[in-house]
């Protein structure tokens, strides 16, 4: 190819050989000589920085200086890839549309902690409506998108449940004749799962016979009142259960305080016990020299006359349009934000959106439909006095065609709910009456809830997709994403199966007043598949190491590259993939664009 290799001076083709030449810049850190001196086709040599720009990280080069690597998004995958690439000493810049979180303002610090879930701390960006949120038209989907926009991304607002995809999840076509195999296997990710578990700080109990072997550095969460009820009922039925791996610190760990059971952890942890990348990866990455610019929303990725990514156009914290040139661009915006950005980056050369010659950008959206069933036992449960999830089951994870569907689901058990949530939901379900009997019934329900949530594997279907809404725009006038999604017949059968098993479980536990949420309508936590990975450019968006087929200096590291979804929460696998792709980049520095 005509273009000079980007990382020539530092790249020797393997990670161990990575020793970038030093170049001292006043007021700055070390830069790779290659990044500073190489000439790129059709573009000026990067200028020596002449003024620092104050930001939330360190003093940095002026905005018009190209950076070696530009990462879009500071969430689960963006943080991991930034941290991993920091050791190259390249100039790595991350642009994040949200800001830094302030734990002193987290819901659990106030008496109104539950009410906040319905407003500024809603999991739905459409309800939250903060300036850093972008609207999503999900009217044509029974499952609504939930996410969080900040440094840390949706790891700020998640349940911290930490299963991995199983080895069999990477070979579904071979094993079950559906969807596609991944171009990589579980073994390729194993070292990155382990590295990620150390960085995020996981707790759990090694040795689950039905899950991949893990080595959590901290012991599992306490069983609590709910865990004991769940375990006994599952034992009566002869069904598998096991303490969940979670990213809740059960001991002090790497500067994080141990969990003190503040209650429902999903909307951020004031104690800092729940792992989110703003308190795990980012402090390490910034200390290692990565620059993080917050409140910067990227509008589009630009390309040059060679069809290579040349940088991004973004709006800074003051709403001023900026152009940031870059030699490599990495997208880490999740399965909705990433296709939105690629589609918004359409140009004369890429009329259907960037990296979209396959036509698959935005297609094959997978959510994981949740089939939830819950009831009320006579004994007290943990209610709001514990992290919401503590145990899982893989009893129905693998394909058994006698069940009437292919593939399977994982189960996460739910410990309970707080009083406001209990009252609101039970009133809506019609089991908490108005009037005189309200008090008696509420006392029967509150503090006695037990839940069974099945995470059903969603298979890829092209009609489930993210497109650009023709009308809806965010606060910067950037077209918003539109979701079209239906639950497949296979998924419906799986959900029915799960609800039947859940009912058996609840009845065995002695529960009454059984209620169902199927699907959980505000359950679109897992945003997967919309820029899938593969070796065939006609059938995939990125190759087997995350580089887009069409643009050889453009990478994607978030959940959009999933080929299939498995039946578990995906964040652990998303981050392992991001670390794997970063490692691949480091190993291929000498010929990254070939």
């Amino acid at each position, binding site marked *: 190819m005509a273009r000079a290799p980007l990382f020539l001076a530092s790249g020797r083709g393997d990670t161990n050989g990575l020793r970038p030449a030093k170049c001292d810049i006043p007021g700055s850190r070390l830069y790779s000589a290659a990044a500073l001196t190489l000439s790129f086709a059709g573009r000026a040599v990067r200028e020596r920085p002449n003024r620092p720009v104050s930001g939330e990280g360190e003093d940095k080069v002026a905005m018009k200086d190209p950076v070696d690597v530009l990462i879009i998004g500071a969430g689960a995958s963006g943080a991991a890839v930034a941290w991993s690439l920091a050791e190259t000493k390249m100039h790595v810049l991350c642009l994040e549309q949200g800001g830094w979180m302030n734990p002193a303002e987290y819901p659990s610090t106030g008496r109104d*902690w539950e009410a906040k879930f319905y407003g500024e701390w809603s999991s739905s960006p459409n309800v939250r409506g903060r300036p850093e949120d972008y609207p999503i038209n999900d009217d044509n989907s029974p499952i609504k998108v939930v996410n969080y926009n900040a440094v840390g991304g949706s790891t700020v607002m998640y349940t911290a449940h930490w299963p991995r995809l199983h080895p069999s999840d990477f070979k579904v076509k071979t094993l079950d004749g559906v969807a596609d195999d991944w171009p990589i296997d579980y073994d390729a990710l194993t070292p990155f799962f382990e590295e990620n578990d150390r960085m995020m700080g996981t707790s759990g109990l090694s040795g689950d016979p039905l899950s991949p072997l893990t080595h959590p550095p901290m012991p599992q969460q306490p069983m609590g009142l709910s865990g004991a009820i769940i375990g006994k009922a599952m034992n009566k039925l002869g069904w598998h259960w096991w303490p969940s791996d979670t990213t809740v610190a059960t001991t002090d760990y790497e500067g994080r305080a141990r969990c003190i059971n*503040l209650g429902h952890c999903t909307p951020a942890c004031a104690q800092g016990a729940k792992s989110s990348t703003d308190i795990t990866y980012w402090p390490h990455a910034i200390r290692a020299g990565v620059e993080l610019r917050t409140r910067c929303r990227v509008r589009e990725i630009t390309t040059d006359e060679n069809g290579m990514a040349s940088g991004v156009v973004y709006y800074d914290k003051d709403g001023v349009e900026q152009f940031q040139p870059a030699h490599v661009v990495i997208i880490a915006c999740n399965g909705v934000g990433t296709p939105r950005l690629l589609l918004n980056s359409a140009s004369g050369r890429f009329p259907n959106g960037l990296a979209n010659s396959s036509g698959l950008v935005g297609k094959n959206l997978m959510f994981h439909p949740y089939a939830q069933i819950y009831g009320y036992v006579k004994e007290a449960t943990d209610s709001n006095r514990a992290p919401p999830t503590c145990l899982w089951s893989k009893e129905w994870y693998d394909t058994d065609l006698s069940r009437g569907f292919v593939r399977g689901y994982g189960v996460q058990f739910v410990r309970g709910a707080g009083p406001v949530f209990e009252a609101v939901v039970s009133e809506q379900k019609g089991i908490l009456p108005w009037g005189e009997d309200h008090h008696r019934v509420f006392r029967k329900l509150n503090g006695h809830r037990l839940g069974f949530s099945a995470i059903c594997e969603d298979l890829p279907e092209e009609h489930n997709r993210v497109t650009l809404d023709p009308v809806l725009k965010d606060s910067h006038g950037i077209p918003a994403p539109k979701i079209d999604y239906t639950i497949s017949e296979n998924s419906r059968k799986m959900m029915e199966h799960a609800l039947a098993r859940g009912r058996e479980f609840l009845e065995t536990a002695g529960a009454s007043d059984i209620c169902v949420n199927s699907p959980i309508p505000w359950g679109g936590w897992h945003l997967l598949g919309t820029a899938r990975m593969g070796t065939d450019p006609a059938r995939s968006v990125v190759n087997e190491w995350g580089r887009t087929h069409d643009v050889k200096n453009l990478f994607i590291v978030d959940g959009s590259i999933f080929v299939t979804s498995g039946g578990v929460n995906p964040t652990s696998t998303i981050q392992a993939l991001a670390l794997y792709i970063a490692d691949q980049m480091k190993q291929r520095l000498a010929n990254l664009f070939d």
Partner: protein
Amino acid sequence: MSEQMTLTPRQRQDLRTIAAMIIPSSEEYRVPGADDEIIQADILATLGRDTRLVAAALDHLARLAGMPLADLEPAARDSVAQQFRSSGGGAAATLVRVVLQCYYRDDRVLRSLGLELRAPFPKGHVLPDGDWSLLDPVRARAGTLRRAP
């Protein structure tokens, strides 16, 4: 739909009436009703982003009642309340949720429920570690992870 950002006196009156219908006071449990002055003040002070929908719900209620809700005979009031809940949609659900979320953080109510009057942070809660020998049957059954080619 009402566009004002505060409730009118009539709306406040109806809010109070419907709140009492949702949660009346109870001598047995020693709790106030949701029409209690302190709880009503909390609702009005914290309506915030919910004001528009709550006002819309109260407009709908007023149309159903045709007069201040409190002035209706009890049977008619109950009938209006049922219609309100069944036909009020998201606005009615928001009104009910606002009443419940303020009621179930009131000190007197929490005390009656045996709950502590505090934010979760910084004290947290203590959880029993439990008897992990419950896992023995799972270990005994074992099972194997599905192999991938």
